[in-house]
């Protein structure tokens, strides 16, 4: 589904990613771990096409199509969704209007007519219940005045609405207590199908207790240093990252 | 002179002089001490105004003459002394820096009439530990017009702190014009504080201009405790990136005094920061005016500017005019401004009364706490404490009670 080949990327002239290779297949859940500044968030921003990040070399294809040639909204239409670590607030724009605009933009891309008002509200209600989001929240402005937990739950709600093929969860677990984490993770699990995949960026093992990963990658200084099974995450949890620094990157 | 004749004196129709009638201030028939009669008065003997806890070098300016008892400092690293002297010793430097301020007709008037002033020059990389203090004294048995000047040259990486105190030693009506020019070269750091503690019949028309180059840092503070008509026109210009300025103003006005602060911060370079806070407490029939404009030119991307003006009218006949302006031609900026005019909080007064604090004491406490955050911005701790003390005394015992000066109360000489 997703093929990342030798990606180099920089932000404000500083090289952050120094040759990333990553393949994600349908049905897989990948976990990306690594200390702060190792390039995890940069990689996810490069995938969604944040203009602040400049790709200096390499390719990314999504279902065989050149992702780097697409504007961010088309990448979204193609089925890539990013759950932000700190979702931005958009004052005055209600969640309902925001989501209607997003859903209709995607339908237009797919050559479908705009969704009817009634159908849309039905869809909102359905997806809202799926992730346990208060009805009140969808009437409020996008993320404005939401608590940390509400924001993350709202991200998963939007994911449910847009039904992506590939979800990138950027530290969705940070700032959440155990209960909130469980609700968010359960919401995510309900949305999983054999056709979808996910990249999950995290610092903690506890997220992985809820979302069972297939493959774990560890990033250090802009490179993937080690790739392994779930046990790699446990070793990082108990031993930290230092032991990896002595080893050489896997191919 | 030509500039003065060409544009005439500013009138209330000029936007920047909207709140202050300059012609009326200049109307009395002021005497000029043109023949440079020595004033039979040594400020060093009678006048001590020092900041406890800070080694300070005091330089006196009496009327428009630099006192002869001042000791000129000129050790190659630092020059502090009369302008006339500086012009003789360093003619090139003088020519390079003097009167480069783009001023209005009031600046021209000062340039035309000025006879002497103080020059402070801090050489490249030199750090001055002691507080440099300038004391301006208004004197004379007849109404006098004094024209003062300050020239501050901060060379690359230089650091200094300057305190300028204006006092009055006369009961006579008098007027001073004052032009302060400051140059902050790359990476220099200047703290400049001005304290106005004269009397009802002392009037001052001040023009201050600072030019800031790359990475320089200016902390400018003006504290007005007592004055007649005071007009301060301050212009701070960023000519190099990554420079910053903190501007703080506190005005305590009473009687019929008229305090007008006109500030322009011009961002001409990217990545500069300006942080402006002015507070006024207006009592009696005093008038306060504040016009603060932050100008962000097209090349000044990533400007970060914050401007706050808060005012208390504590008597029914006090008046406040305020104009916090933003003029922005760049798009990647973060600029906020806020302005409030209000009174002491009744709920807080009542809460204090309920705890046994008298209304008078309560008012004092609230006014002091209102002024508090301006003084908190003063970096030099001894000076800050001294000013907090002076402000408290000013609130508690009224005007002219700085508690330390012999001259307090405006004795005539």
């Amino acid at each position, binding site marked *: 589904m997703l093929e990342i080949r030798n990606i180099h990327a920089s932000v404000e002239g500083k090289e952050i990613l120094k040759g990333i290779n990553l393949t994600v297949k349908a049905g897989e859940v990948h976990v990306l771990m690594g200390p702060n500044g190792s390039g995890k968030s940069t990689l996810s921003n490069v995938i969604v096409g944040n203009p602040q990040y400049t790709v200096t070399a390499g390719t990314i294809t999504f279902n065989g199509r050149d992702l780097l040639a697409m504007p961010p909204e088309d990448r979204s239409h193609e089925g890539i969704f990013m759950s932000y670590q700190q979702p*931005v607030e958009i004052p005055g724009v209600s969640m309902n209007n925001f989501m209607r605009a997003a859903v209709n*933009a995607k339908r237009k891309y797919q050559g479908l007519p705009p969704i009817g008002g009634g159908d849309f509200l039905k869809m909102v209600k359905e997806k809202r219940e799926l992730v346990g989001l208060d009805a009140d929240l969808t009437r409020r402005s996008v993320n404005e005045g939401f608590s940390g937990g509400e924001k993350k739950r709202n991200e998963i709600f939007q994911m449910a609405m847009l039904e992506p093929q590939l979800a990138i969860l950027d530290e969705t677990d940070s700032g959440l207590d155990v209960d909130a984490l469980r609700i968010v993770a359960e919401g995510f699990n309900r949305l999983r199908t054999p056709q979808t995949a996910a990249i999950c960026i995290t610092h903690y093992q506890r997220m992985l207790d809820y979302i069972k990963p297939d493959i774990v990658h560890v990033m250090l200084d802009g490179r993937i240093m080690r790739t392994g099974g779930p046990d790699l995450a446990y070793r990082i949890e108990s031993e930290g990252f230092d032991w990896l620094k002595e080893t050489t990157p896997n191919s | 002179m030509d500039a003065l004749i060409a544009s005439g004196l500013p009138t209330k129709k000029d936007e920047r002089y909207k709140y202050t009638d300059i012609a009326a201030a200049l109307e009395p028939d002021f005497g000029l001490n043109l023949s440079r009669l020595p004033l039979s008065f040594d400020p060093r003997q009678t006048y001590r105004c020092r900041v406890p806890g800070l080694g300070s070098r005091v330089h006196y300016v009496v009327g428009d003459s630099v006192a002869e008892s001042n000791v000129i400092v000129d050790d190659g690293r630092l020059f502090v002394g009369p302008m006339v002297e500086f012009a003789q010793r360093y003619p090139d430097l003088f020519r390079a820096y003097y009167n480069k301020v783009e001023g209005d007709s009031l600046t021209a008037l000062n340039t035309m009439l000025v006879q002497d002033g103080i020059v402070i020059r801090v050489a490249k990389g030199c750090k001055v530990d002691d507080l440099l203090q300038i004391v301006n004294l208004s004197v004379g048995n007849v109404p006098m017009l004094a024209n003062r000047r300050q020239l501050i040259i901060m060379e690359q990486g230089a650091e200094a702190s300057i305190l300028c105190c204006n006092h009055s030693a006369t009961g006579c009506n008098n007027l001073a014009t004052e032009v302060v020019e400051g140059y902050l070269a790359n990476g220099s750091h200047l703290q400049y504080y001005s304290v106005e503690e004269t009397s009802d019949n002392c009037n001052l028309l001040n023009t201050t201009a600072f030019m800031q180059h790359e990475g320089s840092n200016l902390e400018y503070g003006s504290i007005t405790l007592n004055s007649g008509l005071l007009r301060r026109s301050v212009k701070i210009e960023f000519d190099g990136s990554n420079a910053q300025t903190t501007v703080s103003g506190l005005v305590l006005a009473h009687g019929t005094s008229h305090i007008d602060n006109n500030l322009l911060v011009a961002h001409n370079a990217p990545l500069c920061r300006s942080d402006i806070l002015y507070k006024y407490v207006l009592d009696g029939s005093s008038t306060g005016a504040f016009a603060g404009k932050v100008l962000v030119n097209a090349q000044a991307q990533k400007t970060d500017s914050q401007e706050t003006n808060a005012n208390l009218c504590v008597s029914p006949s006090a*008046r406040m005019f305020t*104009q*916090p302006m933003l003029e922005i031609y760049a798009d*990647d900026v973060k600029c906020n401004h806020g302005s409030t005019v209000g009174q002491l909080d009744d709920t807080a007064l009542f809460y204090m009364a309920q705890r046994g604090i008298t209304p008078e004491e309560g008012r004092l406490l609230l006014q002091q706490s209102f002024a508090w955050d301006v003084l908190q911005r003063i970096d030099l701790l001894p000076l800050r404490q001294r000013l907090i003390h002076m402000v408290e005394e000013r609130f508690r015992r009224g005007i002219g009670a700085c508690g330390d000066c012999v001259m307090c109360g405006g004795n005539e000489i």
Partner: protein
Amino acid sequence: MLKSRVKSQEPRVKNDNTFVRDVANRDYEYGFTTDVETEVIECGLSEEVVRLISQKKGEPDWLLDFRLKAFRHWQTMEQPSWAHVELPLIDYQAISYYADPRGRKHKSGRQEIDPELEKTFDKLGIPLNERLALSGVAVDAVMDSVSVKTTFKEKLAEKGIIFCSISEAVGKCPQLVRQYLGSVVNYRDNFFAALNSAVFSDGSFVYIPKGVRCPMELSTYFRINAINTGQFERTLIVCDEGGYVSYLEGCTAPMRDENQLHAAIVEIVVQKDAEVKYSTVQNWYPGDKEGKGGVYNLVTTRGLLKGERSRLSWTQVETGSAITWKYPSCILQGDDSIAEFYSVAVTNNHQQADTGTKMVHLGRNTRSTIVSKGISAGHSQNSYRGLVKMSDKAGGSRNYSSCDSLLLSDTCGAHTFPYIDVNNDSSVVEHEATTSKISEEQLMYCNQRGIPPEEAVALIVNGYAKDVLSKLPMEFAVEAQKLLSVSLEGSVG
């Protein structure tokens, strides 16, 4: 898209600008002209012209005197230059001060209006046929210098409400007009007010009697059609004790390469316990992408909150005009009166706007609120200018102002010029302002959710302006939202 038709008596519109016109056409959908016979008086302004206008309208002597006094005063004045706009010196002799699209039919005494005019207003979405009208909205349709039709007049008259053109009111209720005309905006007030007082053409007159709540929205739709004419409308609204009215004003003009002058006066008098809501959706032709053409919108609009507990609320959405110079103001004279000003001003391409309000507090315990949202794009200049004045008699009064500016390009300017004068010790004035550019993070977030940039900007801007748009009556709020999006088209690269 309608192709402009050129009227026989007009000078031919130059065709050398077709490309630009076509591009601009896409954005400004009201740029067509109407082919009706229009009676236009010769260009130029003199005492004779003032007399001629008065004579054409069959005005009484007192009104002619009013005009002449204003004209003589205007002759002593100079065009002001203090606003943050580059307004060229206008050649006041090159403008015609009176254009009547009712043509000769009017003179023959027929009551029906020219079907072409009716069609024009249909096209603008303002049906003049009462059966087709927006439910609950009465319209006074003004084209050029005259009122074409006022709907629902009879129905309103049942309640004692007078809603008609001001020319008609001069004949019908001269005592009311004479009492209030110029009582809020004196002809000496400013240059354009003096000009308007001398040559004002038509506009609406509203009188709400004591204790009457107007059962429908009243609205005036202004349309400039004839070429080389200025529009100098005059609106007077008097709401008597305990009355209520909500009033809307909409404006459009054809696209022309020449600048057109619009110098209006709106006066509102609000008596004790009465309430007036005045909303404007101003969409005069803004000029093309190169800044050519467009309306100079130089208006004086002011309300007097005369009685105790009176209320006045201004809401404006300003998207059109090449130059806007407009400060809907409130004089809070009655104790406990309440005034509000909500404004969204959008400038794009080469538009310039200097707009804001004046809140003059004279009565005790008066309250005012100012919410201003400026949005600048392209090469435009957008300034907020506002005065809050607390007089020495206005004890216990409060004002809250919030002025935000949003920048959508690095070639535009956003400025804030607030003036706050406080002359007593028991009033509270709070002002806050922010200027920022449209957030990259917000845009990226929308893009990531699949919303394309242009749509994302419209979405964010509408959210930003929501506080103000929500104050508009329903029917207009939707229109205004669309207008905001259209005005900003092409503002993101």
